[in-house]
């Protein structure tokens, strides 16, 4: 912890600097290195000083030894539900935390509907809009069980999932909603017959459809007791008036978020740095009351220090939104300092349902490892 004395960030002439033990930075530089200072006009010292020799002239080694990293790195899970997860990652650089975030959003594969064969669509939703809407429906299926389908691959049971949707609204009945639970999994592949150029009657084998499955997907052990379906049953796909009908087949394939956001396995993944609220001076009595009132998210509390006197304390810095309300007005910024800890990340992952969030994160880390390995092999 940084003591009161060290928290003064005012500029000091270099010859007045206190003596610091060798191998340590003077407090004001240490503060600039490890914290973003959120002053009332703008955040300052936002950059990370990464160069190993940045403080060489002061005899301070800024390089990171793997050993130190191992000793200091911490993860703490804060919240975990089926699809959401919040955890703290402490002691890592933003470059790497951001790499994980970018991979989660753009480079983890999932399955999503890519091709839609429309046999009949008399609804008001145009074919292309309907196809786009279908693509965005999250599917509850582990993408690791499937292969990518490349340009000249035949769709087979290992790279394609086929759904059927056939709904009609009878004449005389009220309008109906078509929801995602109408998407029925076809484990044996497409049922639409492919019209070949030579549609001669001598075609010996079975009729050709749009997929060539060699076996039913429901006979595979992974899916036999775990049928494939959309993650949510109640996503509205279209609305049908009397007499309208939709009949189509949707083919889902494996892809990545950087091709199209429908393949992104997360609704979003983000991090924020831990806020740090520091009282630079004792704030007592009326001023303390005033401070508590200023904060819209109740960061401050009041404690009794005896003799009928009260003092403000920082009780919940984590919920600070950095709205800067508490440092507005006359000289409040001399009493309260708002900072962010540069190497403490509050990471949140919201999965769309294909994989649980903790699996997503480990997969993301693995992908970064694979990237490194690729570079190493290319260089050797």
């Amino acid at each position: 912890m940084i003591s009161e004395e060290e928290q003064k960030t005012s500029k000091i002439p270099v010859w007045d600097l206190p003596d610091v033990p060798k191998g340590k930075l003077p407090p004001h530089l240490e503060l600039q290195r490890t914290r973003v200072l959120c002053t009332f006009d703008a955040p300052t010292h936002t950059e990370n000083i990464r160069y190993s020799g940045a403080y060489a002239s002061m005899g301070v080694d800024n390089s990171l030894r793997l050993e130190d990293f191992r000793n200091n790195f911490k993860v703490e899970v804060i919240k975990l539900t089926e699809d959401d997860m919040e955890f703290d990652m402490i002691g890592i650089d933003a470059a790497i935390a951001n790499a994980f975030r970018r991979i989660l959003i753009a480079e983890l594969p999932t399955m999503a509907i890519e091709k839609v064969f429309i046999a009949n669509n008399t609804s008001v939703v145009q074919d292309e809009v309907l196809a786009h809407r279908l693509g965005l429906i999250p599917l509850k299926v582990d993408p690791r069980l499937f292969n990518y389908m490349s340009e000249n691959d035949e769709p087979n049971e290992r790279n394609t999932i086929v759904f059927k949707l056939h709904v009609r609204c009878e004449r005389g009945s009220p309008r109906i909603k078509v929801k995602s639970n109408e998407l029925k999994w076809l484990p044996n592949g497409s049922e639409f017959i492919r019209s070949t150029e030579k549609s001669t009657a001598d075609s010996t084998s079975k009729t050709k459809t749009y997929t060539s499955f060699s076996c039913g997907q429901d006979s595979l052990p992974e899916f036999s007791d775990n049928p494939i379906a959309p993650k949510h049953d109640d996503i509205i796909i279209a609305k049908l008036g009397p007499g309208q009908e939709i009949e189509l087949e949707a083919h889902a394939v494996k892809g990545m978020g950087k091709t199209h956001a429908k393949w992104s396995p997360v609704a979003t993944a983000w991090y924020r740095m831990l806020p740090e609220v520091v009282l630079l001076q004792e704030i007592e009595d009326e001023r303390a009351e005033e401070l508590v009132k200023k904060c819209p998210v109740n960061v401050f509390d009041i404690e009794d220090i005896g003799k009928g006197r009260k003092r403000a304390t920082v009780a919940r810095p984590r919920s600070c939104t950095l709205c800067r309300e508490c440092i507005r007005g006359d000289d409040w910024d001399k009493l309260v300092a708002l900072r962010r800890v540069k190497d403490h990340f509050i990471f949140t992952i919201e999965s769309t349902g294909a994989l649980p969030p903790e699996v997503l994160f480990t997969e993301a880390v693995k992908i970064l490892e694979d990237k490194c390995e690729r570079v190493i092999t290319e260089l050797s």
Partner: protein
Amino acid sequence: MEHGSFQDQSQATFSLTDEDHTLANSLRYTLNQDPRVTFCGYSIPHPSDARVNIRVQTTVDPAREVLKDSCQDLMLICQHVRGTFDQAFTEFKSKKGLESMSIEP
């Protein structure tokens, strides 16, 4: 992919295809942490080209080896992150499991 001179192997530019800020920025970080590196940086020459150029200048060591070591470092960091995460996760799970058990009548 390496562009540098044969006389002086301590400085080179590496051109990585199919990579972006994700890898390049992390590598820049690990490179910068290496005391042998005097300068490093990366650029993406054109946004619609999937390619990054990483520039490495070292004191004496061959830039190629230093970049390889940085990749190795990054990999070790990742492995440690994964290990720590898994551990924290199982800890949280078991704690949660105990709590939910005690709530049950």
